[in-house]
């Protein structure tokens, strides 16, 4: 029997390898974007000489392989490079502020994104688990159907539509929550949570369906097992049969779906950020793509990839740990 530590180490190495491959893919993909920063920034005044000068300044005239390894080497030391756009801005104004590095730009935005993801997860994960367990308990009942229809229609609607519906009901008709979520660093935690609640609710509607339906399916899948029949024949209540006997054996698929949805919350929420004017990393990323700010785009992509890999890695480890055969070898 392979020990748990060995499996964990294997997954860790595999995760790092994946991250390395992804970094190559990101670099190639970003370099294949049409147009370049020099042309985008100079616009009408893009004379060949000016373009050439800016390209030389930013090191864009180097061959791609060399640029990749320079970037990778610096990234490994924690230096994600300087934002083209900010560096340029600093040149124009003559000020040299600390905010020109990619890391300094991304850090507050990323913290905001994590905050939004955290608030959403704190609402969505318990709600979907409870709904999923109840749907399994009262399967094929009216409750099950209503829960299914509600979550499926919310996942099928565009995010911005859900966002506007929530704004209409919770901000316009009943002014309970602010419709704008522009948070600042000097706000208190309470204020931040209040501002973040509406986008978090929108995202909850988006991610609940997956997690709830997987919880329900994973539990129902086990209900025909002999040990569930045994639990029933011991005269246990239906809720105890499901929570105590089915759920612990259904954890692996549920954990995996939760991880995928959390990764989505970190990487895929730009639409919701735009609707609520929330200063997350998604907007920063889209802006950077628009003006071909290559270091910024690469850094964002790398963070997204790392988030996916890290969450899937944790899900893997947790599902392995949920298996008593591995936790308690013979």
């Amino acid at each position, binding site marked *: 029997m392979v020990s748990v530590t060995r499996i964990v180490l294997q997954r860790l190495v595999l995760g790092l390898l994946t991250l390395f491959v992804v970094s190559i893919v990101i670099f190639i993909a970003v370099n294949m974007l049409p147009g370049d920063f020099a042309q985008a920034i100079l616009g009408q005044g893009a004379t060949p000489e000016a373009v050439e000068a800016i390209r030389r300044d930013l090191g864009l005239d180097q061959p791609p392989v060399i640029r990749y390894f320079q970037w990778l080497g610096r990234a490994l030391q924690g230096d994600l490079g300087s934002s083209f756009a900010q560096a340029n801005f600093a040149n124009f104004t003559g000020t040299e502020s600390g905010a020109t590095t990619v890391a300094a730009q991304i850090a507050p935005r990323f913290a905001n994104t994590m905050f939004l993801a955290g608030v959403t997860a704190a609402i969505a994960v318990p709600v979907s688990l409870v709904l999923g367990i109840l749907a399994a308990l009262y399967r094929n009942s009216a409750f099950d159907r209503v829960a299914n229809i509600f979550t499926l229609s919310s996942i099928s609607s565009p995010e911005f539509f859900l966002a506007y519906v929530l704004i209409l009901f919770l901000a316009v008709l009943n002014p309970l929550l602010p419709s704008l979520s522009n948070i600042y660093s000097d706000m208190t935690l309470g204020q931040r949570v209040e501002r973040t609640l509406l986008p978090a609710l929108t995202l909850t509607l988006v991610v609940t369906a997956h997690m709830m339906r997987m919880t329900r399916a994973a539990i129902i899948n086990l209900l025909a097992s002999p*040990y569930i029949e045994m639990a*029933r024949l011991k*005269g246990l209540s239906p809720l105890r049969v499901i929570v105590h006997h089915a759920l612990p054996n259904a954890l692996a698929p549920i954990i995996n779906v939760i991880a995928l949805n959390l990764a989505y919350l970190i990487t895929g929420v730009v639409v919701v950020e735009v609707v609520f004017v929330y200063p997350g990393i998604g907007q920063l990323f889209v802006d950077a793509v628009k003006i071909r700010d290559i270091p910024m785009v690469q850094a964002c992509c790398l963070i997204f990839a790392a988030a996916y890999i890290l969450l899937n890695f944790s899900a893997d480890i947790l599902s392995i740990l949920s298996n008593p*055969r591995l936790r*308690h070898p013979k």
Partner: protein
Amino acid sequence: MTQPLLKIRGLKIEGRSDETWTPIINGIDLDLNRGDVLGLIGESGAGKSTLGLAAMGFTRDGCRISAGSVEFDGIELVNASAAVKRALLGKRIAYVAQSAAASFNPAHRLIDQHTEGPVQHGVMSRAESEADGIELYRKLRLPNADDIGFRYPHQVSGGQLQRAMTAMAMSCRPDLIIFDEPTTALDVTTQIEVLAAIRDIVQQFDTAAVYITHDLAVVAQMADRIKVLLQGDEVEEADTRTMLSAPTEEYTKSLWAVRRFQRPAKPAIPADATPVVSVRGITAAYAATTVLHDISFDMYAGRTVAVVGESGSGKSTVARCITGLLPPKSGAIEFMGTALPADYRKRSKDQLRQIQMIYQMADTALNPRKTIGQIIGRPVEFYLGLKGAKRRARVEDLLNLIELEPKIYFDRLPSELSGGQKQRIGIARALAAEPQFIICDEVTSALDQLVAEGILKLLARLQDELGLTYMVITHDLATVRAIADEMVVMKDGRVVEQGGKEQMFAPPHHPYTDLLLSSVPEMDPDWLTCLLEERGVDNIGDAAVGKM
């Protein structure tokens, strides 16, 4: 006359299949007094388990009780509310399932599952129940009774799990326990320990029991009375001794007769004969674990060699070496005197053709999406190169050979066949290659006795007609007695003893062979008692630990 503990009257149960309700139990009466043990016997599909569960007021999904009454100690269970039933289940009526390995929750420790019933029903506190559980483990002669409960199910062997499940059923001191084939999945030597343990504890606590099984010899040891079921109807019921000595119904007699099928002995092997397949000093391993140690035996034309042993003894691994699926570390497989390449990938098509296999689970060995004609036609085309009408004609011949009408079965799917018919298709598929040598891996262990007998007779007939050589892997000595000529006994990856069947079944035996042979239940109701006396209680498996 006191009221019976369990009283079933005119019980009818229906099962749902394709939008219609078909009867499973057609009106059964049953009485069980306190402290009595009733044996329910019948083939699969007879409705034994359904009836056993119905005695608990429980039906599986897709089944319903359509008429009749089930009265437990004066409480009507049919149409009783879920709460009424929950108050009885586990507390006053308990259940012991066929596969303890599947019926223990893999996520919780044994003792946690043991104490759950008493704690939830408010019979005992957790601490009391835990102490009681350990006491019960000791009474059931489980090794390391003090700490076996603190293990997870996967850390405990099948026979021990089955006893732990009996202990769990006892946890609330119920009035009635339903035993649903509790020893079917166990080896004969383990079966004895479990049977003895169950019988003791049921007697000790004067618990009434319904004991469901398809094995007559087992039920003879356990039950005071026996009820025979056939397709949802009662055939007859009588006390055990009457039932064994003087069954009145034809069906019961046929069940009794099954075990008597035996082939006449064959003439001795000529001294100069070359074995069809010869296993020469095979040592094999999975990864670092050596599972076979220097195995050697020969198999001669037209004869059957039975390889016998408990699960884990390496029987099936020998088959994997012969077919080349698992190249041995040392030693060789010879076919008609010439060594075969160890790896099946290096064998010629003709070498592959000569050695075929029939599997235990016909269900999983047949592709569910192919018709019977395709399943048998594939090896016909692959090995013999027959196509079109010739291929079809050959498949029809093969179907006739296994006594299935080609017109009816050619275009059917495996799911439309019964278990015995599927196993026949497995045989036909092996025959399609026109091999000289066939490995039968537990081919009858998933089948009912009557059906299994049919398969064994078919195998015997085919051997006589086609001169086939069989290697039969089995843990069932009745099968060996029925069709084998030679016998190889294996234990822990070694050959313990081998020789002609007559010689092997007659004393003196190697101690392990003796243990194996004497563990096969006999129809005599006093067999278990006598055997236990003979062996002495301490000798039963790992019973040495703990006091009685």
